[in-house]
């Protein structure tokens, strides 16, 4: 890992950490990916744009790196395009970006991840340019990018020599601050946890800045928040973790980082679930995370004698090294200690699960906190995995609750000369019948006991009285009360003075009770006094939700029933019949000897006469069109033109006829 040709001094570690932090992720070769959900989310987040790139170089690198870590298969075309994209950036000597080192750094890493075939001359050129950047810059990030780029180039098999390592180191050193924080560049007075994490030597100091959630989840955050440089807790935490693990790779000594802080960081990353942004996803995956203890099921039934099962895996879901899991403490509600006897869980090699029978623990139904301790079997693993001391898991134990001594009755007064006590079997619906007046009381008692014989206090016990008119009254039976009483005297008004038959229903429920029930007890004939004038009326009963939200009654639309039509044949027959008078008319004309001799024979008058008849025909045709499709206004518009024409032609034609007939007269 040490850069070739450089003097190996302790301070040189700085640069190496800086580079290794990003170039190699220690958990990159995770055997099993986190989960398929992570994979599909990653694939969605890094959807390539049509031209094959993933946006800028940094995003592209994060995409290909994430795909590599998760083992997502990319198609060859996409790889080729990403390679080409990176190669273009490497080859172009004049970068348009404000930070050429950054572009080169990402481009080299992309081609490294994708194993692109890049001309060796290009790498030499890149190395030269990066060296130039190192020489000139005084910004920490620029240094980081250029040194990182050089190391990436070296990983491609090129021989790179940093000529001026000492001055580079001094440049970096100048940015450090005495309190363990770092500045981005010499011009900025602000220090940053992020910057420090990139290069820091005494890493343990970092953990002084760690912040904590209530549940023991740790995260890093920037102390000096600048709106443009704020990285967010995830980025910062991931950077710290990467830096620390990189340091762990190269340093021979053991890092003295408190185990619970490492585990807390792991929980922080896991607790994020599937973060929405690509960057968050990338950071979450590349950060190293230790062993996680989890319970496949947190509910155990005493009835079916469930086994307590514990799964220990790495955060990536792969199998943990050989280890022992001990149950060291069981805490009941209110942190009451039930047992502190240490019990070792059996290990099931096939399913990779640690298990323990819960029956010998003698724990009753309820909610418990189980405290586990993980101990690694092989001492050398302790430097690799963080177990995080004690793990506390909350579990539920459920069981069948025995119901007995259930009885109900009506009593006259508090002293309780109970007139009628009836035993009820709450295993099934009962049908007792009671009767009472407003001076009496209803008594109800039953006893619940857990499988271990203790008295059980359920969360919810309700007694429901339902009148014939569907007015309901719900009484909460205190869980602690052995006997429950309803004094009707004080409830007369609340009952709206409604006498008559009330149905009784008892419901008992608890999260730890497997046989929670709702039983009909029977009915109660209640005799209440007459309602006074101003007595409140019972509220209108809510509509049955099934009818309220159910399908509405179908509306049958009433259209006027179509008139009865005659058969078609009859109508056609009469259509034909109407033609008969016309035929008769024609025959009559022929018998009268009608002719067209009077039709003008001269060209002009005959033309006008013809036009006159054609005009009349046109108007009639227009009427037919009006009947078939035209509206009145269109018809009138055309009719006005036709009318003018017709009047003109008609006048000429008829005046000619008139003149000829007057001539005949005079002649």
């Amino acid at each position, binding site marked *: 890992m040490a850069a070739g040709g450089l003097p190996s001094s302790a301070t040189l570690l700085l640069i190496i950490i800086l580079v290794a932090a990003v170039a190699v992720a220690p958990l990159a070769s995770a055997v099993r990916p986190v989960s398929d959900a992570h994979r599909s989310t990653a694939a969605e987040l890094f959807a390539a744009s049509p031209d094959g790139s993933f946006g800028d170089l940094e995003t592209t690198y994060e995409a290909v790196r994430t795909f590599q870590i998760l083992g997502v298969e990319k198609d060859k075309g996409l790889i080729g395009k990403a390679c080409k994209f990176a190669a273009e950036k490497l080859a172009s000597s004049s970068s348009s970006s404000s930070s050429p080192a950054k572009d080169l750094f990402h481009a080299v890493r992309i081609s490294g991840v994708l194993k692109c075939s890049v001309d060796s001359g290009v790498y030499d050129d890149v190395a030269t340019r990066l060296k130039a950047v190192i020489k000139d810059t005084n910004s920490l990030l620029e240094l980081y990018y250029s040194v990182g780029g050089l190391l990436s180039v070296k990983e491609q098999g090129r021989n790179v020599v940093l000529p001026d390592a000492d001055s580079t180191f001094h440049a970096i050193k100048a940015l450090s601050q005495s309190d363990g924080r770092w500045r981005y560049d010499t011009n900025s007075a602000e220090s940053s946890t992020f910057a420090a994490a990139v290069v820091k030597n005494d890493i343990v100091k970092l953990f002084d800045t760690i912040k904590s959630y209530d549940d023991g989840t740790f995260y890093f955050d920037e102390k000096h928040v600048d709106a443009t440089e704020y990285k967010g807790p995830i980025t910062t935490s991931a950077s710290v973790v990467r830096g620390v693990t990189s340091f762990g790779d190269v340093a021979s000594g053991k890092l003295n980082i408190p185990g619970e802080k490492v585990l807390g960081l792991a929980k922080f990353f896991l607790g994020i679930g599937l973060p929405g942004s690509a960057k968050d996803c990338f950071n979450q995956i590349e950060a190293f995370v230790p062993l996680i203890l989890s319970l496949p099921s947190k509910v155990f039934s005493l009835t079916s004698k469930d086994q307590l099962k514990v799964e220990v895996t790495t955060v990536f879901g792969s199998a943990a090294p050989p280890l022992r899991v001990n149950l060291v403490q069981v805490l009941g509600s209110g942190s009451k200690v039930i047992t502190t006897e240490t019990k070792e869980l059996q290990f099931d090699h096939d399913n990779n699960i640690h298990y323990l029978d819960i029956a010998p623990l003698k724990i009753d139904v309820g909610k418990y906190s189980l405290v586990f301790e993980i101990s690694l079997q092989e001492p050398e693993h302790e430097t690799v995995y963080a177990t995080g001391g004690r793990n506390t898991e909350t579990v539920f134990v459920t069981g069948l609750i025995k119901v007995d001594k259930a009885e109900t009755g009506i009593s006259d007064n508090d002293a309780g000369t109970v007139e009628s006590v009836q035993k009820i079997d709450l295993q099934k619906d009962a049908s007792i019948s009671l009767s009472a007046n407003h001076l009496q009381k209803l008594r109800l008692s039953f006893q619940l006991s857990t499988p271990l014989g203790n008295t059980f206090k359920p969360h919810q016990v309700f007694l429901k009285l339902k009148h014939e008119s569907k007015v309901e009254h719900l009484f909460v039976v205190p869980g602690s009360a052995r006997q429950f009483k309803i004094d009707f005297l004080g409830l007369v008004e609340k009952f709206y003075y409604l006498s008559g038959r009330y149905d009784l229903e008892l419901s008992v429920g608890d999260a730890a009770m497997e046989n929670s029930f709702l039983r009909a007890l029977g009915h109660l004939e209640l005799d209440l006094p007459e309602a006074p004038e101003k007595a409140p009326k019972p509220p209108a009963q809510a509509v049955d939700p099934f009818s309220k939200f159910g399908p509405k009654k179908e509306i049958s639309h009433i259209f006027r029933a179509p*008139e*009865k*039509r*005659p058969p078609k044949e*009859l*109508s056609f027959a*009469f259509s034909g*019949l*109407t033609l*008969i*008078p*016309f035929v*008769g*008319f024609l025959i*009559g*004309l022929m018998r*009268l*000897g*009608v002719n067209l001799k009077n039709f003008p024979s001269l060209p002009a008058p005959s033309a006008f006469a013809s036009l006159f008849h054609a005009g*009349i025909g046109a*108007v*009639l045709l227009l*009427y*037919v069109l*009006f*009947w078939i499709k035209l509206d*009145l206004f269109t*018809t009138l518009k055309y*009719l006005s033109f036709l*009318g003018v024409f017709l009047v003109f032609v*008609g*006048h000429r034609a*008829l*005046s000619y*006829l*008139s003149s000829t*007939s*007057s001539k005949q007269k005079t002649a």
Partner: protein
Amino acid sequence: MPKATSDAKLLIQSLGKAYAATPTNLKIIDLYVVFAVATALIQVVYMGIVGSFPFNSFLSGVLSCIGTAVLAVCLRIQVNKDNKEFKDLPPERAFADFVLCNLVLHLVIMNFLG
């Protein structure tokens, strides 16, 4: 009774003779009126059989025929030379009125026909 029948026969015969003297153009108009009224009658019979459902159509059809017949009768009155009242009115003018009235009538009929 035989006498009455023969009387009626005589009456009709004399009526036929007198009508034969009517000018041809008036006969044409008469024929036209008969044609129109007959058509109207057929429609009324149809309505009697199947009912008056598209009542507007029925009215249009019948009124078209009746209206035409009435207009034709008016034309006949004006054209008849025996009517001294319309002596000055030329038959061409009467025909023009007839055509105009028919066009207006049928515009309304078509509008009503639906």
